[in-house]
């Protein structure tokens, strides 16, 4: 098993043809290692490995969004910050309330008040 590249591993696990974002993730894992992917995406390296080999049991669509944002340049139109990488948008949604600057509060409200990109309760993108 160890002589397989990440891409080969991925296509084998995904029944021949892996989705484009899995290929992108496998490619990065091959070049820079699982740990680098994990840091970039905010997941553990185990999760990245499981995703590539189609064994992850959690919310795969969220990982997909993060990969598309961080590695494939997908952006959303944030009502507060304007053009924003999808992965950063998802990171914002998990940030707790803190009184460090007023825009952080605006973001907190926007993510919970009908923003079409939000996966939170109150957001428009609940899956």
């Amino acid at each position, binding site marked *: 098993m160890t002589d397989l590249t990440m891409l080969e591993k991925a296509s084998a696990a995904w029944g021949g043809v892996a989705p484009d974002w899995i290929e992108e993730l496998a490619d990065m894992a091959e070049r820079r290692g699982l740990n680098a992917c994990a840091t970039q995406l905010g997941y553990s390296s185990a999760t990245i490995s499981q995703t590539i080999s189609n064994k992850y049991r959690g919310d795969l669509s969220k990982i997909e969004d993060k990969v598309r944002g961080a590695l494939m340049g997908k952006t959303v*139109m*944030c*009502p*507060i*910050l*304007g*053009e*924003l990488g999808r992965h*950063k948008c998802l990171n914002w949604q998990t*940030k707790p309330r*803190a*009184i*460090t*600057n*007023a*825009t952080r509060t605006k973001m907190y409200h*926007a993510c919970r*008040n*009908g*923003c*079409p990109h939000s996966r939170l309760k*109150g957001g428009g993108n609940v899956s």
Partner: protein
Amino acid sequence: MNDRNTSVNPGGLAALKNVARFLALVERLVDRGPHLPGLGVFHGFSGYGKSYASLYAWNKRDALRLEIGDSWTRKKFLEKLLAEADIKPAKRTIADLTEEAIMALGDDHNRPLIIDEADKLADKGMLELVREIQEHSQVPVLLIGEEQLPAKIMKVERVHNRVLDWVPAEPCDLSDARALADLFCPELTLTDDLLTEVVGHTKGVARRIVVNLTRMQEYGRNHRKDAFDAGAFERGWFFTSEPPRRGERRVA
């Protein structure tokens, strides 16, 4: 269903010239050589769009951003700084918190720290603390404040010596007003001479320009119009931040 208004405004940020000025300052600080000081100052009158310019850079450069509150003490400042860096402080004294902040910032020393309302830092005598943090973490630190900020920094010799560059924010010109109009009322057709009038009445203060644009939008909606040119509104109609005056008071 509830009756709360949950609409999300088409918002975002307009790339005004002040945004470019601020971004250039951030780049200069990030790319500076190791022997150069790491403080940058962006100053200008209220409403010029300094804070919005910093939001843009905050987003693009993944920076940390603080707005100094009037109630903040040195300890509060350090706690907020750590909160912004997603770190729960382990210890409680100011010296320990400072050390934690320096270590946290130093982990990624290209990630800028933007401090808005920096006048309050000066008023509260916290500039030295910021200098200490900057010095040991070597992160680019951007101080944003009102027009008096440079004068306040000049009083603290050790801090003002470490400023790499001072960049004044400028009032909006016609093309800035156009960018704001495109962002906030894209459905209206506004002529250049009307926008010139707006810039004149508002003295180029971005915040007031936006208020005027929003009023035009409202007026257009109420009167079913979507195009305005110079002279469409009389002088007194424009919002200049002056409270309205009463006319002659009637004597009973």
